[in-house]
């Protein structure tokens, strides 16, 4: 619209918006997909044979900027060791009234014992509940984080622990990005790397989605990803919504 009728451009725009889908997510019932590096509540991991990864070195407590972690190590009992190696985490407590979810503890941990899940919706009504002990932080026998009554876990979220750790490269070396240098976890085995700064991210394996793929209708035309524009975009959209057919590799 231009010329004397340009005044009505605003009216046209608002009227067009009547037909467009809403961007609101009805939050408690539905949630937006979380990003691969979401920082949430911690978990203490275990090896595939059930041994704890924590060796009680207290590096996480040392690096914590808000002093919310309290660890005490103890020598492994020789007849029934808790972790492979000399010592294990005898006491492990995190105070979530203090934790700022900076993930420095995850970075400091030499054995990938502590990682962060994507779960951030936990509202305790008691100050004592805010202090998570080792019994609560440790993954269960199936390798999943424990679900406490005041935590809001959703389908598929329990599998997404440690995304942040698996997205970064050690010492900032870009050549290590996407290379597995972590040990396997109880129940799931060796996890897939998350996409980092580069484009080659495996969204299917990690369950993350780009926001611009979710809201293409609300973007400027030039910001819409190429594969979602025009007729080709409509076809791709329909194909994505169809139930996925099994490929030969899946069946094998």
């Amino acid at each position, binding site marked *: 619209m231009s010329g004397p009728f340009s005044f009505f451009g605003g009216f046209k725009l*608002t009227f067009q918006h*009547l037909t467009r889908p*809403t961007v*609101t997510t009805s939050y408690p019932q539905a949630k937006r997909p979380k990003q691969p590096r979401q920082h949430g509540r911690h978990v203490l991991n275990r090896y595939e044979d059930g041994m704890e990864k924590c060796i009680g070195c207290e590096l996480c407590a040392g690096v914590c900027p808000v002093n919310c972690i309290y660890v005490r190590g103890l020598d492994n009992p020789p007849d029934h060791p808790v972790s492979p190696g000399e010592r294990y985490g005898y006491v492990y407590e995190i105070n979530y009234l203090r934790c700022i979810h900076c993930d420095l503890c995850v970075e400091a941990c030499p054995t990938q014992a502590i990682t962060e899940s994507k779960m951030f919706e936990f509202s305790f009504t008691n100050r004592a509940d805010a202090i998570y002990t080792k019994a609560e932080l440790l993954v269960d026998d199936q390798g999943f984080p424990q679900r406490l009554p005041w935590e809001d876990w959703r389908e598929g979220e329990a599998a997404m622990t440690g995304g942040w750790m698996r997205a970064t490269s050690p010492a900032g070396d870009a050549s290590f990005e996407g290379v597995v240098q972590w040990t396997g976890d109880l129940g799931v085995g060796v996890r897939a790397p998350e996409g980092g700064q580069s484009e080659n991210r495996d969204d299917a394996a990690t369950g993350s989605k780009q926001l611009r793929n979710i809201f293409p209708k609300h973007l400027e035309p030039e910001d819409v990803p190429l594969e979602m524009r025009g007729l080709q975009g409509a076809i791709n959209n329909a194909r994505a919504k169809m139930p996925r057919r099994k490929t030969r590799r899946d069946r094998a």
Partner: protein
Amino acid sequence: MNWLSTVDPIYAHGLTAVVLLIVLIKLLVGFAVLMASVIVMIWFERKAISDMQSRIGPQRWGPFGLLQSLADGIKLMFKEDLVPAEADRFVFKLAPYLVLVPALITFAIVPVGGTLTIAGHPVMLQIANPPMGILLMLVMSGISVYGVMLAGWSSGSKYPLLSSVRASAQMISYEAALGMTIVTVVLVTGSLSTHDIVTSQGQGIWHWNLIRLGLVPFIVFVIAITAELNRPPFDVVEAESELVGGFHTEYSSIRFAIFFLAEYMNTITMSAMIVTLFLGGPAGWVPNVAHLRWVFPILWFLVKTIAFAFAYIWFRASLPRMRYDQLMDLGWKRLIPLSLGWMLIVAGFLVARGWGFLMAALVLVAWTILGRAFEIGQGRETGVDTVLPAVGERPLPGRVLRDMTDREEG
């Protein structure tokens, strides 16, 4: 009793008990419908505007959130009723009713449908049809200015006061343009009564004042009435970013609810008034269905009114708020000359075609001169004494005082 029957044909056989009952029922139904429509209007506005902004809007209470405004009303009633310490208590408590009562009364003169026959009495589907008719609307909007003004003044707070000053100036200046367009309609109809205005437009779409008067009075009326309602883009009275909440900043509980109620009631009434004055009211195509012919005029009236109610919401979603000086410019420099000139042209054409063209030529000349004058006024260089220096360069009051006293001594 004879003069009564000239007002409403229902009184032709005198003021009997049946007639009184019918009038009472009409009154109650009108009141109930208006109250219910306010609830629906608030819901409609919130839903429509959230659709325009890609949001969901109310959804929790009732199907599609329909009961949301009812819930809000109940909540407001149970809130604490505060009167500020600085307030003028009597006026503070009176002001909401000065806004509410005119809003209720104005709807009484809107013809909702045609004429029904109940128990042998012809019943007009309009609560009252006073001979002064449309003037009642102007009177009532004049009174509601008092409500807004007194609410702002009696709050004993600066933002409501600023708002009430704005409100009075805005409503009075737009009332001039409003009155002029109404005069144009009245000239063509030859009657002040809303019933006559509607019946004179009943012969088809070409007889609607919208087309018969040539669009300009309609456009002026819609703009002026939006300003009169203090609705966006003319809501400088309640400009949240400038005046907190405007004149009702200090109000809470049921008194605040009354202001809110009156505001939306006015929106509905004025939509209905536009329909009455310019779109033939309940006029429209009526299919030949036995016993149900009276329903269709009401439906037509509803459809037209809802269209304008939507238009107000559309304005709100699309247009940014005007600055106060822009608002005054639009009112005094554009709308008043336009509506006055158009009224003179219409009056000329009503006398004779020759007079009409003469009047049109004269008005055109006047508009040109006025336009040129505004242009010169806009481009005029402002003198030194009218422009304040920048804030940092402005002398402090003490400094100014010292300069003045020094000068007198020296």
